[in-house]
């Protein structure tokens, strides 16, 4: 009996009348509708069976008379199964049980819908504002249907986020929203005792752009991939492919094989450039600029290759619903092979020259340590999890696109620190090259005249759910689509890999040195823009002691030379 059947049976037995329906519309996806009362019991049952929590999706279902919907999704990585639990709450009583006491990783999702939809969560340990700016008026919930997508309430003066008091015996060092070592706006209030970090509070979501709302009100199905691609400045294809897959799953479209291989090539090219970018940034953050310069020089070749293949170095624009827009023909695949050979050679040389360098070891080993148990508890994903011995990779566990036909390894490390992340990412570069080469071989064997995309036969039916995963360079990204009328999604939820990983940063920071703050935060490769989705202007009390960049540099130099 497969995991899915076993689950459904258990739910039928235990929940009885509280289980409304359970269906598998698409292999590997189980969509369950429950009564509200049974939510936490069902979630606990899934977790006991070894599920990994992914994301919560709230939506406004008042049009169909169902009040507010809430979907929690879970992954069984060993069984290639994704489970979505959906419940509804009536409009006059939009309260759900909070899953956060059970699953800490659900904390943000729930706070998000508290802000955006006005849902309430019973027993949430930290029900503070998360997404909306501090001066956003109370009682306006942007994701509700009646709120226009371009609503701009007037800004209010003198409101500030209430950061918590520092624990006794510590003082606060604020990092961000703008800080030399953060590439994107986010605020960390770090509690330090001397040089040791004793805790941290995060306030982010300053680059919330309301993309999901835009897609649900203004765009049409085939406009969204181009907007999705602009969610992230690095992994664009990840989001466009992911969105397209979710819609295709919901609509029951079969994508031509050729298109799936081309998508895979685009995704792996993105992984290559992202890993090299991160390697460079990591080098820069620990003050090792040779790595930065050389990794980025190698990366540039891939950017130019992408420009030749797709017409742009970053926004590939390859994906539409049902397929891709451009082909990779023989000339182009020769071009790709040549560039990859060069990148592989250069990367090996660089690896040999740096991985034994003492600078790197001193700055990364034992830094940002988190045990495997903690990593599982926080639902870490991607290289951050793999560096802690958690063997997950959506490409292998939940194959999509053409990953079921290519062979690759999933590198793991068990050191549980920044060093492990670095090793994992460097090894993944070679795996990505291997995957692309295999895809090119297979592409050449496929019939040439196969269409690149399928045509829609008619409108996509409404109220169907689609759930898709893509292993982004930083970890798994989840897209949930509920199809709607008027040729656009009713609900589209994007969960970027940084979303769960960032929630665990406070634990990673604990008992590290302040000077290691940038590299620890950097080690998860935080993509704040992907994670955030309303512009926040934050005013902080001037109480905190500011550390100048010079001071910071001195600190980090002192550490580096072992003094």
């Amino acid at each position, binding site marked *: 009996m497969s995991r899915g059947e076993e689950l459904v049976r258990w739910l039928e037995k235990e929940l009885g009348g509280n289980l409304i329906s359970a269906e598998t519309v698409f292999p590997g996806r189980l969509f369950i509708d429950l009564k509200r009362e049974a939510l936490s019991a069902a979630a606990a049952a899934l977790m006991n069976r070894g599920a990994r929590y992914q994301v919560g999706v709230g939506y406004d279902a008042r049009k169909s008379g169902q009040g507010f919907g809430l979907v929690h999704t879970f992954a069984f990585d060993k069984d290639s199964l994704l489970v979505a639990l959906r419940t509804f709450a009536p409009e006059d009583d939009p309260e759900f049980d909070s899953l956060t006491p059970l699953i800490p990783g659900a904390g943000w999702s729930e706070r998000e819908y508290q802000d955006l939809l006005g849902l309430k969560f019973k027993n949430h340990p930290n029900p503070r504002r998360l997404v909306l700016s501090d001066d956003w008026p109370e009682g306006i919930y942007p994701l509700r249907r009646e709120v*226009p997508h*371009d609503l701009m309430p007037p800004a209010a003066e003198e409101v500030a986020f209430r950061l918590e008091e520092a624990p006794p015996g510590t003082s606060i060092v604020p990092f961000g929203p703008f800080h030399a070592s953060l590439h994107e706006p986010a605020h960390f209030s770090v509690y330090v005792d001397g040089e040791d970090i004793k805790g941290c509070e995060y306030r982010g979501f300053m680059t919330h752009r309301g993309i999901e709302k835009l897609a649900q009100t*203004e*765009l*049409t199905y*085939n*406009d*969204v991939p*181009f*907007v999705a691609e*602009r969610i992230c400045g690095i992994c664009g294809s990840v989001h466009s492919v992911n969105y397209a897959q979710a819609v295709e799953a919901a609509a029951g479209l079969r994508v031509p094989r050729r298109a799936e291989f081309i998508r895979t090539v685009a995704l792996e090219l993105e992984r290559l450039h992202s890993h090299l970018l991160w390697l460079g940034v990591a080098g820069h953050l620990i003050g090792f600029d*040779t790595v930065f*310069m*050389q990794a980025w*020089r190698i990366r*540039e070749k891939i950017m*130019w290759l992408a*420009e*030749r*293949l797709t*017409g*742009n170095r970053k*926004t590939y*624009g390859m994906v539409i619903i049902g397929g891709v*827009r*451009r082909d990779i023909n023989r000339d182009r695949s020769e071009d790709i092979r040549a560039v990859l050979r060069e990148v592989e050679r250069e990367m090996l*040389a*660089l690896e*040999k*020259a*740096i991985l*034994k*360098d*003492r600078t790197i070891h001193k700055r990364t080993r034992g830094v940002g340590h988190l045990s495997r148990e903690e990593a599982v508890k926080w639902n870490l994903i991607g290289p951050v999890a793999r560096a802690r011995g958690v063997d997950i990779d959506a490409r292998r566990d939940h194959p999509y696109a053409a990953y079921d036909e290519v062979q690759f390894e999933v590198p793991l490390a068990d050191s549980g620190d920044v060093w492990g992340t670095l090793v994992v990412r460097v090894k993944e570069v070679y795996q990505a090259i291997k995957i692309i080469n295999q895809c090119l071989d297979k592409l050449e064997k496929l019939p040439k005249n196969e269409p690149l995309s399928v045509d*829609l036969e*008619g*409108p996509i039916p409404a109220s169907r759910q689609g759930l898709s995963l893509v292993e982004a360079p930083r970890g798994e990204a989840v897209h949930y689509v509920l199809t709607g009328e*008027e*040729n*656009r999604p009713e609900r589209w939820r994007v969960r970027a890999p940084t979303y769960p990983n960032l929630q665990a940063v406070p634990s990673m920071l604990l008992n590290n040195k302040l000077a290691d703050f940038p590299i620890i935060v950097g080690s998860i490769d935080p993509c704040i823009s992907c994670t955030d989705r309303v512009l926040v202007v934050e005013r902080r009390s001037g109480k905190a002691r500011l550390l100048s960049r010079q001071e910071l540099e001195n600190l980090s130099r002192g550490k580096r030379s072992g003094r």
Partner: protein
Amino acid sequence: MWLWNKIKQLAISFRAGVVTLRYPFEPRTAPEGFRGQPVWDHTKCIGCAGCASHCPARTIFLRDICQEVRILLYDSSRCTYCGRCADLCPEKAITMSDRFELATDNRQDITQSIELFMMTCQRCGRCYDLEIKNYIDRLSSLGYRYDCLEARKVIRRSTTEFSQEELEKTVAYERPGRLEK
């Protein structure tokens, strides 16, 4: 060990040499297939508005300023160079050019507008192109498939006679505002 690593790093850096391009002093040409600014060929366009209703950035705008004249306005300031318009144009009137150095302090520099002379169909009263031999159906061919009505609303609007006011409105149309509700 330490020294040996440093020597290797030095070797890599020396071998790579200076890689910074002398851009903008030496021009960098775009590769073949590059998606630069879209360019309209007014002799081919039949004014079907397919491009306008599919532009994800909603930056192409069509409006009938009188029964015979339809204006197509493209405001590059919002264009994301995705090439969707060029893909969907049934007449292949749009090409993605290799122009990418588009920074300007005057929006008019990067705006394109075409005046299209249209005929009125005696049967249905809708406008169609006069000069190119085309069926009226082609107007609604590629572009309008399963399109959303909401987006269409702002694009087609006719007045029975020429109106200076509509023309001015169209030309002065500022896209980054909001869609009419």
